[in-house]
C-alpha cells in the first residue's frame, strides 16, 4: 500500500479549512496566511500528482486507491485519475492560492460595523474557500459514482455561504439591498443545483439497481460498470440507459451551465465577490463539464450518441445567446458571467463532437477558460473595489490613470476573446475544428461566437478604459504589489500555454482516446486520405 497521494491532495485543503476556521477571531491575518499556506501545500501535492502520473501508461486510471466503504451497498472509496482529471486538479490547485490572495481583504470586517452591516468573519471566508477546493479535488478524483455524487452535492454548501455571505463592499446600491440580492442569488444557486443533483441521485440509484440486478452484487464503481458493459455482462435497455443518461446530464448541465439552465450563474457571479465568482465559474462549474466526459460518456455511450444532436444545438444556443447577452449587459461581472456561459457552450460542444480534437480541445478549454476568466474577473474585481460600482457606465478613461490595471484587463479580455498566442485560442480552435470535422454546419455557426466575443470584450474595454477620464476615476490608484502578484502569473501562464500547450495536450490525449474508444467513435478521415484509400482499393 503506497502513500495515498490522491487522498492527501484532497485532505490537505480540508485540514486547512478546519485549521483556518479554528483561528481565533482576533488573529485575522494569521488565518489568511494559514489558508494561503495550505493552498500552496495543495498546489505542491497536485504538482507531485502531475509528475507521478505517466501519460502513456496503460489502463484508464492511475494512482488508484480503493477501500470498501458501505459494504452493503457496494459503495467504495475509489480514487483514480486520468489525464483530464490531473489537468483539472492542477488547475484547481493553481487557482485557489490566487483566489485567496485576490480576496485578501474581501472578508475583512468593515471598520466601525454599523448595525445594518453584518460582521464578516474572515476565518470563515477562507475556510470555506479551502473546503470548496477539497471537495472539488476529490470529485475530480472519485471513480465511484456514489462518492462523486456525494461531494458533487456537498460542494453546494460552502458555495452557498460564500455567495450569500460575502459581497462587494457597498455596491452601487446600499449594503442593505445588495445583501438582499446576494441572498437571493445564493438561494437560486442552491435550488438550481439541488434540483439537478436530486434528479441525478435518482439516476444514480437507478444505475445501482440495474447493476445489483444483473451483476448480482450492486456496485457504483465506474471501472467495474464500464468493464461489465464492455463484456456485455451489464445490459441496460435502450430506454433505461437514455433515462439514466438524462438524469446524469441534467445535473451536469445545470452545473455547467447549459442554456436554458443558466440563469443562476449571472446572479451568483454578479452578487458575489470577484474571487468567489472565479471560484464558481473557473473551478466549481468545471466539475459539471468534467463529469460529462467521465460519467455521461463512459457510462452511457449509446445514449450519449443518441442525445448528441440536441445537446449540440443547446450548446450552440448557449454560445450565441451568452455572447449576445454579454454584449447587452451593463454590469461588468454579469458581462463576464454571460461570456462564461458562451464559453461553456464551446466546451460542451467540444465534448459531444465526439472527436479527439473536440474533446481534447474541450479539456484544454476547461483549463484555459479557468485561467483566462480568473485573470479577467480578478482584475475587474480590483477595478470594482476601487470605484465601488459594477456598472460599466461609471467608468471611463481608466487607461490614463491606471495603465497597468488597464493593460492586464486588456490581456484578460483578449484571452477571453481567444486571441491567438494566448491559451484559450488553442482550445477554442481545437473545439471548432473537432466539431467542424464531424458537424460542419455546427462548426460554422459557432464561429459567429468568435466575432461576438470580440464585440463584447472590446466594447467593455472601450467603455471602461478608454475615452476621457471620468471625474470619479481620476484618483484611482494603479495595481498594488499584491494584486500584481495575482495577475502577473496568470497572464504569464496564459502566454505560456498559448505558445507551448504540448505538455497539456500530451497529458490529455490518452485519456481522450480512451473515452472515445469507450464511446466507440473515431475521428473522420480527411477526404484526400479517403480518396487515396479508394484508389488503393482499386
Amino acid at each position, binding site marked *: 500500500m503506497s502513500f495515498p497521494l490522491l487522498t492527501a491532495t484532497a485532505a490537505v485543503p480540508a485540514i486547512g479549512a478546519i485549521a483556518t476556521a479554528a483561528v481565533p477571531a482576533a488573529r485575522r491575518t494569521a488565518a489568511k496566511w494559514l489558508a494561503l499556506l495550505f493552498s500552496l501545500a495543495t498546489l505542491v501535492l497536485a504538482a507531485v500528482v502531475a509528475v507521478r502520473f505517466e501519460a502513456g501508461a496503460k489502463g484508464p486510471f492511475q494512482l488508484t486507491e480503493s477501500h470498501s466503504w458501505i459494504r452493503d451497498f457496494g459503495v467504495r472509496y475509489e480514487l483514480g485519475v486520468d489525464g483530464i482529471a490531473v489537468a483539472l486538479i492542477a488547475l484547481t490547485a493553481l487557482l485557489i492560492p490566487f483566489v485567496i490572495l485576490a480576496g485578501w481583504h474581501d472578508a475583512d470586517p468593515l471598520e466601525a460595523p454599523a448595525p445594518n452591516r453584518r460582521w464578516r468573519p474572515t476565518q470563515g471566508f477562507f475556510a470555506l474557500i479551502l473546503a470548496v477546493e477539497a471537495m472539488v479535488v476529490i470529485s475530480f478524483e472519485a471513480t465511484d459514482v456514489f462518492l462523486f455524487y456525494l461531494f458533487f452535492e456537498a460542494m453546494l454548501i460552502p458555495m452557498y455561504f460564500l455567495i450569500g455571505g460575502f459581497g462587494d463592499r457597498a455596491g452601487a446600491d446600499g449594503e442593505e439591498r445588495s445583501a438582499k440580492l446576494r441572498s437571493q442569488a445564493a438561494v437560486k444557486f442552491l435550488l438550481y443545483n439541488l434540483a439537478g443533483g436530486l434528479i441525478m441521485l435518482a439516476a444514480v440509484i437507478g444505475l445501482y439497481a440495474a447493476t445489483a440486478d444483473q451483476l448480482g452484487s450492486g456496485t457504483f464503481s465506474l471501472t467495474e460498470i464500464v468493464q461489465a458493459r464492455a463484456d456485455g455482462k451489464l445490459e441496460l435497455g435502450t430506454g433505461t440507459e437514455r433515462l439514466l443518461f438524462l438524469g446524469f446530464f441534467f445535473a451536469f448541465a445545470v452545473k455547467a451551465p447549459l442554456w436554458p439552465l443558466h440563469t443562476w450563474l449571472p446572479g451568483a457571479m454578479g452578487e458575489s465577490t470577484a474571487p468567489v465568482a472565479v471560484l464558481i465559474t473557473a473551478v466549481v462549474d468545471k466539475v459539471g463539464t468534467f463529469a460529462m466526459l467521465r460519467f455521461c460518456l463512459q457510462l452511457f455511450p449509446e445514449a450519449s450518441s443518441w442525445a448528441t444532436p440536441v445537446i449540440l444545438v443547446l450548446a450552440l444556443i448557449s454560445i450565441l445567446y451568452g455572447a449576445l447577452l454579454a454584449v447587452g449587459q451593463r454590469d461588468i461581472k454579469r458581462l463576464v458571467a454571460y461570456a462564461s456561459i458562451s464559453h461553456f457552450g464551446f466546451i460542451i460542444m467540444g465534448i459531444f463532437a465526439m472527436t*479527439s*480534437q473536440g474533446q481534447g480541445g474541450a479539456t484544454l478549454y476547461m483549463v484555459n477558460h479557468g485561467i483566462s476568466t480568473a485573470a479577467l474577473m480578478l482584475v475587474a474585481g480590483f477595478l470594482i473595489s476601487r470605484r465601488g460600482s459594477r456598472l460599466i457606465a461609471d467608468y471611463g478613461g481608466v487607461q490614463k490613470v491606471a495603465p497597468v490595471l488597464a493593460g492586464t484587463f486588456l490581456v484578460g479580455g483578449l484571452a477571453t476573446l481567444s486571441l491567438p498566442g494566448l491559451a484559450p485560442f488553442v482550445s477554442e480552435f481545437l473545439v471548432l475544428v473537432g466539431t467542424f470535422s464531424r458537424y460542419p454546419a455546427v462548426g460554422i455557426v459557432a464561429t459567429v461566437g468568435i466575432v461576438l466575443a470580440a464585440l463584447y470584450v472590446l466594447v467593455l474595454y472601450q467603455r471602461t478604459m478608454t475615452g476621457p477620464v471620468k471625474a470619479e476615476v481620476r484618483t484611482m490608484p494603479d495595481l498594488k504589489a499584491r494584486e500584481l502578484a495575482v495577475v502577473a502569473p496568470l497572464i504569464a501562464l496564459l502566454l505560456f500555454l498559448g505558445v507551448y*500547450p504540448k505538455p497539456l495536450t500530451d497529458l490529455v490525449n490518452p485519456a481522450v482516446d480512451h473515452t472515445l474508444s469507450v464511446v466507440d467513435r473515431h475521428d473522420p478521415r480527411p477526404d484526400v486520405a479517403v480518396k487515396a484509400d479508394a484508389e488503393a482499393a482499386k
Partner: protein
Amino acid sequence: MENLIALLVAAPLAGAALLLCGGRRLDRAGHWIGTLLALGSFALAVPLFTELLGRDAEHRTLHQHLFSWIPVGGFQADVAFQLDQLSMTFVLLITGVGSLIHIYSIGYMEHDERRRRFFGYLNLFLAAMLLLVLADNYLLLYVGWEGVGLASYLLIGFWQHKPSAATAAKKAFLVNRVGDVGLSIAIMLMFTTFGTFAFGPVLGAAGETSEGKLTAIGVMLLLAACGKSAQVPLQSWLGDAMEGPTPVSALIHAATMVTAGVYLITRSGAIFNGAPDAQTAVVVVGAVTLLFGAIVGCAKDDIKKALAGSTMSQIGYMILAAGLGPIGYAFAIMHLVTHGFFKAGLFLGAGSVMHGMNDEVDMRRYGGLRKYMPVTFITFGLGYLAIIGFPGLSGFFSKDKIIEAAFAKGGTEGWILGGAALLGAAITAFYMTRVMLMTFFGEERWRKAPTPSPAEPSVEPAAETRGEYTPPHPHESPRSMTIPMILLAVGSVFAGGLFSINEAFVTWLEPVTSVDHGHPPLSASAITTATIVVMVLGVGLACLQYGRKPVPAVAPRGSLLTRAARRDLLQDDFNHVVLVRGGGELTRALVQLDHSVVDGAVNGTAASMGGLSGRLRQAQNGFARSYAVQMLGGAAVLIAVTLLMRGV
C-alpha cells in the same frame, strides 16, 4: 542559416516584451531600443536574402522547425517557418520600411509621453507581421494574422482619450475579426479535406480534391483577405483607421498589414488555380474595390482619408492581379512592393505636413506649402508621380503590368477588367493631383481663420477657433523624419525600374508563383500608351478644377456622388443601420427575454410552490387533535395500502 529565421521574429518580439513590460524606467531609452531591434531584424534579413540569391532557383526555400505546437490526434500544428522568395520579399519590405518608419516616429512622437509604449506596439506589429509571412502553415499564419490585427487595434487607438480613436480601433478589430472567421473556416476545411494545413502538403495535394471544396476554401480565404486588406465589402474600417498616428497609417495601413490579403491569396495560388469560380470572385472584389477606393479618394478633404482611399484602390489593383492567377501573382506582389514604398512615402509626407501645420488634416486649410517645407514637397511629389504611374517611376511599371494582365485575362472579362483598371488609373491620377495641388500649391488658405463647415463632419478644425486665430507656422520637419522620407522617395523612384530589368522580380518569384505570360488582345505598347493617356487626362482634369480657380476653404455641397463619396459611399450608414442598430435591438430584446422568459419560468415555478405551501401550512394549526386526525388517517391509508397489496 535556417536558424536565423526565428530570430527575425524574435528580435522585434523581444523588443515589444521589453518595452511593454519594462515600465517607466525605460521611458528615456524606449524608442532607441525599439528602433534598434527593428533595424536588427532588417540586418538579419539581408544575409538571408544574399543566402537565397546564392542558391539556385529550385533550392531557395529554407525551413526551420521550432517545436510541435498543438498535437491532438490527426491535428498536428507546428511552430515552423518557411522562408522562400515570396516570404523573403515581404520580410525585406516589412523590416526595411518598418525600420524607416521607426526612425521617422522618433521625431514624430517626440512630444508624446507614451512614446515607449508606441514603439512597443510597433515592434509587436513587426513581429506579428513577420510571423504572418514566415509561417509554414496556415494556423501559424493565422496567429500572425490576428497578431497584426491586435497591433493595429492598439495603434489605431493609441490616443485612447479620443473617443473617435477608440471607436475606430474597435471597428477595425471587429471587421478584421469577421475576415478572420473566414480564415479559420478555411483552415477547418483544409483540415477536413487534406488532414493538414501546412503549406507544402495542402498546396501539393490541392489537385486531388473536388473543385467544390477548393472553391469553398478559396472563397473563405477571400473573405479573410477582404477583412485584412480593406476590400469591399469589409473596407469600412480603413478610413476610420486614420485616427491612428500617421506613422502607423504609413506602416500598417499602407505599406504592410493591409497587403497581407494579397500575400494570402498569392500564397494559396494552388488552391485558387483549381477553383476558377473563386478566382472570379477575387477579381470582381478587386475591380470593385479599386474603383470604390478611387472614388472615395476623390471626395475626401482629410488628407489622410484621401490617401486611405487611394490605398484601398491600389490594393484593389493587387487583389485583381492576384485573382488573375499565374498571369498576375508576380505583378501583384511587385505592385505591392512599389506601393509599399511610395504610399509609405506619401503618408510620411502627409504626416510631416500635419506636423508642420500643428495637426491640421483638412486639405482645404493647406495650400502653397511647397516653399515652407521643400523636402517634404519633393519627396511627396516623387511619391505622387510614382503612384499616378508617371513613366519611368516604379508605380508605372507595376501598375502597367497589372493592367496588361487584366486585359490578358481574355474575352469580355478581360475587356471589363482592363477597362476598370484603366479607369482606376485615370481617377488615381485625378485625386492624387488634387491632393498635390490643394496641399502644396495655390493660395495659403491657412492664414485666414477657419469657418467650421457643416458639410464635412469628419473634419474637426485644429487649433481652437475660440479667440483670435493664430495661423500655424509651417516648417520643415526634423532630420529624423525627413531622412526616411527621402529614402522612401528614392525607393519609389527606382524600385519599379530595378525590378523590371529583364523581369528580375518575376523570375525571382517564379518558383513560388508559377508565372505564365498571357497574351493580351492589344500589344503591350498599346496598353502602355493607353495608361499614360488616361493618366494625363486625370491630371489635366484635376489641374482644371483645382489649379485654375482657387480652392474654397469650406467644402462646397457638391454633387450627389461627391456627398456619397464623402460618406464612404454610404457604406458606414448601411452598417450602422443594419448591424449596429439592429444588433442593439436584438441584444436588448434578448436581455429582456432572458429576464422575463427563461428566468421568469423558473421564478414562476418558485412562486407557485410558495403559494402551494402557503395553502398547505394551514393544515398545521397547532392543535394536537387535528394532528392526531391526520395521523389516524395516515394509519388508515397505510392499512388500506397493505391490504390492497395483499390483494383484497
